[in-house]
């Protein structure tokens, strides 16, 4: 019962926080769909029982995982920012890192 209660309170707090901040909602929704895409790719492999071509599978999977990680690091910095770091910097870093990730995945798939 205690666990159930704690879980419900956490869930309410989370949704309250996310509903008040559209940017958090953007990030969390994107993360959820990235997980879905990863599951779809994995289901494809399980269905055909083959991961050929392996580098293409890795590319597809890594872009989901990598983007998820970058979104999480952006989300962590959306809260109280550090006094010496401007607020635009986390977003800038996210964009640059995402571009690098996309290039690596497109390069690796071939």
């Amino acid at each position, binding site marked *: 019962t205690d666990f159930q209660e704690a879980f419900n309170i956490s869930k309410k707090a989370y949704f309250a926080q996310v509903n008040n901040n559209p940017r958090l909602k*953007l990030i969390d*929704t994107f993360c959820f*769909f990235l997980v879905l895409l990863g599951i*779809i790719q994995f289901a494809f492999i399980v269905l055909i029982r083959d991961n050929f071509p392996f580098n293409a599978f890795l590319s597809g999977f890594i872009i989901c995982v990598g983007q998820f990680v970058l979104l999480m690091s952006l989300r962590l910095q959306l809260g109280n920012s550090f006094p010496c770091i401007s607020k*635009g910097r986390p977003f*800038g870093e996210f964009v640059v890192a995402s571009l690098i990730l*996309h290039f690596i995945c497109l*390069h690796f798939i071939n």
Partner: protein
Amino acid sequence: QDVHVSFPSTKRKTSIMIGRVGPEPEKDDIASTSVKVDNPNEVIQVSFAIDSSDKPFQNFLLVGLPSSNLEMTFEPEIRDNGKLSMYKYKVDLGTLDSALLQQASKSSESIKATLILASSTAKPKDNLFKEILQLDLDFDIDHTDSSFVDKFSVKPEIHHVFHAEPKRVARPIALLFVAIIFLTVLSLIVTWLNSCAATFDSFPSGTNALYLLGFVVTIVGFEVIFVRYYLGTNIFETLFSSLYLGAPGLLASTKFLRSFGQ
């Protein structure tokens, strides 16, 4: 000069003097010196002297059966002694290849020693390529080595199994999953719009709007460059395109991000 053959492993055997050997063909077609060898571990030493000012680049002694293309190469020990250089070749019969020994025994041919002394800068008629010695083997050669296959006999058939081409999935299944992924991405965008996550209510105005446009054009431009690279563009062209886009793009993006942070 003073070409002679000695047998350092057998004390009783005296050395054989061959004398001067030159590149000119032999008169009366005299056969090379023949040596009978009854010890399978005999060491035969061929020594001679050459004028130090005329040392050749190539200095090999070929030992084997030239008619069967079975020859081994021996390099000399060279010692400079004033105006002359002393060359010494040591041929250890125990180290001769079993293929060579077995072929010599089978065909009853003598093993020939051919001397090559040559330089690419010398005139062809000055280069030496002459048979100087024949070795008649007078001992039993072990033919029981089953790992040795006759050089000119039929070889065992080579079987190579190539890897099968990996199987490709049927097009309808692949297209089905592509459709699922497309619908997933579409539903993501619809969710963003419906849940008011993407409200576009903080659109900048004035010059900040231009910087935002520049920022968006930069990131879309980079994605286009990457896709063109994927489709086959040269990496160098990709790098140059990135540079041309990156320079102004960086300027606009940093200005936008500064206003974004504020």
